[in-house]
């Protein structure tokens, strides 16, 4: 297993913000993590990268997972180029006190090329579109060469071209044997994943999309934030209100 989580409860000093979570992600799979804002998705990711210790239970991931933040959580006024950001991935190899090596630079350029932004290497990160910034952060994770990637709402606020590029890239990464945990509010995107984990301050459900993405589970996951779009003979469809609509 690439990710193994057993009976984990997580919090920030008070009551747990995420309680009793247990799931495992086989190597080379994509797990969609669904849940409302404040439901515990980012908290789970913080624990998986080692920033947060569990109150109870245990969790393990193969290697050091890469974390791709929402671009809204990055400082757009900080004057670094797309290449500088991709190059930050090489910090995972240690040697933080030394300048980046030539091989690191070549790796960063290659990663930018892979996300379709080779020509934007010298453009300031804050001047790129939301989708391009997301792709640069994915390039940083590629430079890190992690076996497990944690992507925090990578398609939120992203233009269609970038979204297609990102989803195509997810397929490539999976075929390379990397495991992706993708937090999202997008039901259609979740349906295309191998597994779905539903969180709302606790684990609501975990399993294949066909088993998990039913009306009852989605209502338990999103509560009043969900609007069901029932069509006879079709799988349950829903929109998470207040999030990115699809």
């Amino acid at each position, binding site marked *: 297993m690439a990710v193994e989580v057993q009976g984990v409860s997580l919090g920030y000093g008070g009551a747990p913000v995420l309680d009793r979570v247990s799931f495992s992600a086989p190597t080379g799979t994509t797990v969609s993590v669904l849940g409302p804002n404040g439901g515990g998705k980012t908290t789970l990711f913080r624990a998986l990268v080692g920033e947060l210790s569990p109150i109870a239970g245990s969790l393990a991931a193969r290697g050091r997972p890469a974390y791709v933040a929402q671009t809204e959580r990055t400082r757009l006024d900080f*004057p670094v180029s797309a290449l500088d950001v991709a190059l930050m991935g090489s*910090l995972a190899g240690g040697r933080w006190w030394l*300048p980046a090596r030539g091989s690191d630079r070549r790796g960063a350029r290659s990663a930018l090329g892979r996300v379709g932004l080779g020509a934007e290497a010298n453009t300031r990160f804050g001047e790129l579109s939301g989708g391009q910034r997301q792709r640069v952060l994915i390039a940083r994770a590629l430079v890190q060469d992690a076996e497990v990637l944690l992507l925090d709402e990578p398609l939120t606020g992203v233009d269609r071209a970038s979204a297609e590029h990102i989803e195509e890239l997810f397929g490539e990464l999976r075929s390379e044997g990397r495991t992706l945990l993708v937090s999202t509010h997008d039901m259609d995107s979740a349906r295309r994943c191998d597994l779905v984990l539903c969180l709302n301050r606790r684990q609501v459900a975990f399993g294949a999309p066909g088993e998990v993405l039913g009306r009852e589970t989605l209502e338990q996951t999103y509560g009043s934030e969900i609007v069901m779009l029932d069509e006879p003979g079709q799988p349950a469809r829903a929109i998470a209100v207040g999030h990115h609509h699809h």
Partner: protein
Amino acid sequence: MEVLDLLLEPWRSGIGRRALVEVILLGLACGALSFWVVSYRLSYPAESLGHGLLPGLVLAALAGAPLLLGAFAGVAVAAGAVALAARDEDIGTDTATAVVVTGLFGAGALLALAPSAPARLEELLFGDPLAVSDADLIVATALLAGGAIALLALHRPLCAVALDAGGAGALGVSRGWTRAALFGLLACTLAVAVQGLGSLLVLALLVAPAVAVGGWGLGPGRAMGLGAGVGAFAGIAGIYASYHLGSAAGASVALALCLTAAAGSGARGLGHLRRSVAGPDPAGSG
């Protein structure tokens, strides 16, 4: 020849020469560091520590001990007191800092104004680059060398945490340690630079250069280099003004730094105005 004489004259006396070398060394060290002080929004903590270390300076002056020792002790006490007060979540960090720093500053002034105290309060508050000794220059040189090594070593973690603290943590870069290292460097720099510009004016060295060069899209390395140049240039300009106009040296340096920052800020404002008057780029930048 007259202009050349004006330029060379301060260098001909030992006092003027030492003052110029001191402000060049401090300008280079603080000018480079100022980029990170502004990027990490540490201007207020820097000002607080600069004011809060006054009791340490005064006690060192009263005891006849080196001011540098007093400055280091003062910074340590001020930082500890601020950290302790900030634990009271009911009043908030800013308020706690303001109360502690004002208290420390008042205590320092009280000590310095005691009848038995030597009349040095003015120098401790506003600095006096003309009074620096060879030992001060050695300490400033050590600060510049040590600061340069620290900034080079910390460059990549500082960039990673400044851009995206959560992502940096996943790369194995501790945001807590990175911030603590920067804060430690800031405290050491304050303790040394306060000898030249005093407790009240030292902040100018740690903020004005970054303000002068910020907003032009320069990367961190270039912004630090240019900030160092601006710090040294404004320091020299201040000493020249003091020498030829007979003004207080510390205040002249601080004023030159602030004028440089204002000039940079004004130029940026003009640039924005020109772009808004010209309207959007017809070619479209995407």
